[in-house]
């Protein structure tokens, strides 16, 4: 059975979703989804371990060899991403039952879990596959379920946010489709590995250039890179809080993965960064993104909005690391990918607890919450510190590598700007801390209890992971290093 792990990784949640339809009781469906997600997590652990010890795993679906059939190709990068996604999904699902019971009407709860599993399977499929068109198919599975999940939010603005996301997401996907089509036209193949071998022959053509541009723009739409980020804040703010926690920690990561995969593995580094002034473009967009989004975050009244803008800023950091495009830079990006998943997972889950108790995430409702929900707010504070990049948290590690990478490249001003960006994070985190600990509660609010254990437990699981990986960096650094090396092994 071990040989089939790559495909099991994807089809277990994929087949579990329709099975879930037979479980009419939401609690059963939840238990089943949790079980499946945990199983996927175990599979991804084994996969990572296999990849680290014995190199790339190739799995041919349907038994047809690569350029004719579809293949799954697991290298350290995918395995790492699979691990992040399944881990976050499992932790988030732990809290799901309590939160969902309150936020979604009972008859839709089972449907919620089905969509959740489909979304999970879609993301895993995108990451695992080695075929360009298969990426598109699974991209659509995950996005369609994402639209529906977001629209399940209580507020009517959730619907509008979901619609906007649908339009932007579909345009993005269609752009990717155009790009894949043009690539196919020039090379006659859809397999990524095969593409990377055949593209250099035709890389001077304008068609390939256009294909690259379309794929990048399409991915950036999904990625919510700075000027194309408009759908993200509302989608995150009005979705059910569990969904926010899940997507904030995983969805953009998948898009970053695609960006890295297409740039480094498919098109190859030399092409990617010589055809367009991409390095500069990404660097600028990343930096502007960090500043614009952080500044906007400071003025938000809704804490979910605040963190959503902070997510956009964090994406900016990842893009900066990507634009440096050295091993260290890529390592920084991947580390930040991992770390950001941990922090945002913890933060949004904590917000989930807050919503469970007080039903709102307006900043003014946070007043005095530090004493009423001490554990939840402590988690928020630690997550926030991590976001700023204080030593002993994971945020520090990734910022450290990022600055290292930038300085290695001799871009001193950029390093200074990154530090300045972190200062902005201090400001918006401080606003939460201020209202939670230094303001008296709003009058007329009854006694508020601590969030229920079923939410608190996953929150603290993530918080502890935050600190643990901030101190003991061996695992994450080792894996990201291997991933970055393998990417550069393909490139020049």
């Amino acid at each position, binding site marked *: 059975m071990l040989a089939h792990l790559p495909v099991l990784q994807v089809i277990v949640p994929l087949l579990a979703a329709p099975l879930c339809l037979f479980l009419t009781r939401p609690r059963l469906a939840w238990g089943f989804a949790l079980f499946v997600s945990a199983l996927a997590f175990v599979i991804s652990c084994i996969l990572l371990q296999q990849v680290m010890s014995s190199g790339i795993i190739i799995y041919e679906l349907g038994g047809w060899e690569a350029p004719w059939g579809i293949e799954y190709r697991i290298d350290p990068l995918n395995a790492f991403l699979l691990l992040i996604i399944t881990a976050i999904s499992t932790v988030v699902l732990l809290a799901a039952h309590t939160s969902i019971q309150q936020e979604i009407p009972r008859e839709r709860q089972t449907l919620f879990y089905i969509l959740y599993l489909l979304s999970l399977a879609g993301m895993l499929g995108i990451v695992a596959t080695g075929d360009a*068109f298969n990426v*598109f*198919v699974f991209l*659509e599975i995950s996005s*369609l379920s994402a*639209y*529906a999940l977001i*629209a399940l939010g209580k507020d*009517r*603005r959730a*619907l*509008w946010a*979901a*619609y906007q996301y*649908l*339009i932007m997401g*579909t*345009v993005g996907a*269609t752009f990717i*489709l*155009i790009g894949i*089509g043009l690539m*196919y*036209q020039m090379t006659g193949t*859809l397999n990524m590995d095969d593409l990377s071998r055949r593209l250099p022959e035709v890389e001077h053509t304008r068609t390939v250039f256009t294909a690259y541009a379309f794929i990048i723009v399409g991915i950036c739409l999904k990625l919510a890179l700075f000027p194309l980020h408009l759908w993200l804040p509302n989608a995150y703010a009005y979705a059910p809080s569990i969904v926010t926690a899940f997507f904030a920690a995983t969805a953009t990561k998948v898009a970053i993965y695609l960006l890295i995969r297409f740039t480094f593995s498919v098109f190859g580094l030399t092409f990617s960064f010589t055809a367009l002034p991409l390095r500069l473009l990404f660097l600028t967009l990343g930096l502007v993104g960090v500043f614009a989004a952080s500044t906007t975050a400071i003025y938000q009244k809704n804490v979910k909005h605040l963190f959503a803008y902070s997510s956009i800023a964090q994406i900016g950091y990842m893009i900066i690391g990507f634009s440096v495009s050295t091993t260290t830079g890529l390592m920084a990006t991947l580390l930040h990918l991992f770390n950001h998943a941990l922090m945002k997972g913890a933060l949004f889950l904590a917000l989930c607890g807050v919503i469970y108790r007080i039903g709102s995430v307006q900043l003014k409702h946070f007043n005095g919450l530090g004493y009423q929900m001490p554990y939840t707010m402590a988690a928020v504070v630690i997550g926030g510190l991590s976001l700023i990049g204080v030593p002993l948290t994971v945020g520090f590690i990734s910022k450290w590598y990022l600055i290292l990478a930038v300085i290695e490249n001799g871009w001193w001003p950029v390093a200074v700007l990154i530090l300045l960006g972190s200062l902005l994070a201090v400001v918006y985190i401080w606003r939460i801390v201020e209202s939670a600990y230094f303001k008296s509660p709003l009058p007329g609010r009854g006694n508020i209890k601590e969030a229920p254990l079923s939410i608190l437990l996953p929150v603290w699981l993530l918080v502890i992971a935050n600190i643990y990986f901030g101190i003991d960096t061996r695992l994450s650094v080792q894996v990201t290093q291997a991933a970055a090396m393998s990417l550069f092994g393909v490139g020049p």
Partner: protein
Amino acid sequence: MGHYNYWIVIVLMMIGFYIVIAHGNLIKKIIGLGIFQTSVFILYISMANVDGGTAPIFAEGICQYSNPLPHVLILTAIVVGIATTALGLALTLRIKEAYGTIEEEEIQEKDNLDC
């Protein structure tokens, strides 16, 4: 001149795309999206064409077939397209119920009032 076909497709594609971004009516946006996608399908199918070829179904005495792979891809893409359309329309209906309108600008005004 060998590319005229692609150019027409691109013009169509851009008309669809224009409808998506410039029009405020949500249903119209979805129609635009459909046109955009259908034009991409045409692009794929055009590249599968071979002069003198016929449909890729085996028959006696025919040796020149069109390329079947883009056909397969587009079959999948059509399905994805209808799925998106259905979901988008479902969302539109809910928006109409919740906001009483399906014009982008009016919805945004109502949202601003909410805030």
